[in-house]
């Protein structure tokens, strides 16, 4: 009775996923080595032409660089910020519940709506950020920064929105890790003479290293594969300055109708995921810290 029950319970879910994820993956591979277009019924095998073609396009090369740049910078900021915030939230204090609610908002809100909010915050004419900076005397009110219109600033804005969005998630994960440390370890460290910084940097933070890696992994995957923030804020502009791989794939494949080109572009996301999967498995293997 038992032997078949386990697999039987698990089968429907796996079958569903295998079908609706596996099939598209296979289809994606097929599309990327063919010349499919929306509206045409015939497709021919073209080998690696799509991939080669993509690599030669400046907008693709730019998108590749941007994807890495945005991800690395935003996640570095996230880990630093989340660590600081998690350490600060560890001890209970009055109003911590409210603080947690506020801190979580960026993560909970649908990405598109949060990004829309930022679009308004960074509006070329009415940006409240610019108003506050001007009031503080940091910018010229006659010539305010074009957060979404000037290439460098647009990149910064996208990085900022990504950081803003994933920080709460990382904080929550890190906080969970910190609170899972048994109470007597930091007490022993206190008795042994460790001050605040020494205890945290040499004892508690290293102890939650696996959890930090998990948070980082999620943040990296979410940011690298996200097209929403870019789409809403800048549509990839100005002049492809903020284009990233997923958004380029969207413009090429869906709006542009070049299914195989789009598929080829999205497949470049795959190595990233593979890396992520390997890292996660490594962590799962040697995560025992007790």
């Amino acid at each position: 009775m038992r032997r078949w029950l386990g697999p039987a319970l698990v089968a429907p879910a796996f079958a569903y996923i295998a079908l609706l994820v596996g099939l598209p993956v296979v289809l994606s591979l097929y599309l990327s080595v063919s010349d499919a277009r929306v509206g045409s019924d015939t497709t021919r095998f073209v080998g690696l032409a799509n991939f080669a073609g993509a690599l030669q396009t400046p907008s693709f090369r730019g998108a590749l660089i941007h994807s890495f740049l945005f991800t690395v910078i935003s996640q570095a900021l996230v880990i630093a910020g989340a660590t600081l915030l998690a350490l600060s939230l560890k001890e209970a204090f009055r109003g911590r519940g409210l603080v947690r609610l506020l801190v979580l908002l960026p993560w909970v809100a649908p990405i598109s709506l949060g990004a829309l909010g930022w679009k308004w915050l960074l509006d070329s004419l009415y940006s409240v950020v610019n108003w506050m900076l001007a009031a503080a005397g940091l910018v010229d009110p006659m010539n305010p920064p074009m957060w979404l219109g000037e290439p460098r600033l647009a990149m910064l804005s996208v990085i900022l929105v990504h950081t803003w969005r994933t920080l709460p998630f990382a904080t929550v994960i890190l906080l969970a890790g910190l609170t899972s440390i048994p109470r007597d370890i930091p007490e022993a460290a206190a008795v042994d003479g460790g001050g605040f910084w020494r205890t945290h940097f040499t004892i508690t933070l290293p102890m939650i290293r696996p959890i930090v890696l998990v948070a980082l992994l999620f943040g990296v995957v979410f940011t690298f594969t996200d097209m929403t923030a870019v789409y809403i804020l800048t549509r990839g502009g100005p002049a492809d300055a903020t284009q990233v791989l997923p958004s380029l794939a969207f413009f090429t494949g869906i709006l542009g109708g070049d299914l195989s080109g789009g598929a080829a572009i999205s497949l470049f996301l795959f190595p990233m995921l593979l890396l992520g999967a390997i890292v996660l498995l490594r962590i799962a293997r040697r995560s025992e810290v007790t």
Partner: protein
Amino acid sequence: MAIVATRALTKRFGAGENAVDGVDIESRDGEFLVLLGPSGSGKTTVLRMIAGLEDPTSGEVWIGGRMVNAMTPRERGIAMVFQSYALYPHLTVYDNIAFPLKAQGVPRSEHEAKIGWAAEKFGIVRLLERKPRELSGGERQRVALARALVREPQVFLLDEPLSNLDAKLRASAREELQKFQKELGTTAVYVTHDQVEAMALGDRVVIMDHGRVRQVGTPAEVYDDPADTFVATFLGSPPMNLLERDGILLGFRPEHVRAGSAAEGAVGFRFRCELTEYLGSEQLAYGTLQDAAWAGREVVWRFPSWDPAPAEGSVQDVYVERARLRYFDSSTGLRRPAP
């Protein structure tokens, strides 16, 4: 001069009763002082207040002649061994022991010598490169001790360090601990709920219950001369027999019951045996007294395994020497002189 003392030490958590209620303790220099009591008696809280891990609600803690209430644990010159050992799991044994040295700013060049010395003392030199998860319970305990030792503290504080070891290991670990403390001569304050441990290790024992100190004395003093019924029944297994009559409790220990009729200077009873237990090293007989004055009172009798055991249901004469009798007031539980 590393004497540990508390004066009217009190701790209240929230709006409830005092967990620690006006505790006055004073250790002697180099003494192994045991805080003994059931769980909830406040003994661990007292230890933590001495360590500086909890702030007292009121009262003072003195270490080595200074009042340390305002000092952090680090400044108090203490070392602590936790019940769970609290070893840093991601560091090797070597680095675990090195941590206090680093934290105190001891120069790197001196680390190896000191760590070597501490490891030597506990026989863990060959374990220095291992991580805590690779060690057995007994080995972890010794690492915790080495880590405490390496700081050369004024006082050792130990929170039930043997309770996580299995029974067989506990006895040998206890012996080692005792030898080590005697050799070192550093004052140690040790918390336990195990009275056997307390009696074996302590130079003096502080017996606590519900946040208050019931009695302080050498093992012999608290065993033979209990200050109240709590101490009398907490120590000794099985506990002291207590018979009540006219507002007075008469007490005597199971091992002081003898078979036979009472001579001059002894008190006799008629004992009806209900049940006997053979424990290998000794035997126990559970029964009731048949005397008119003590009818139906339950009594436990402890005698060597080579003596014949009374038959179940049999009635015989037993006696207890007067010198062994203890009297307590039945309403307060306090010791009183013989009536």
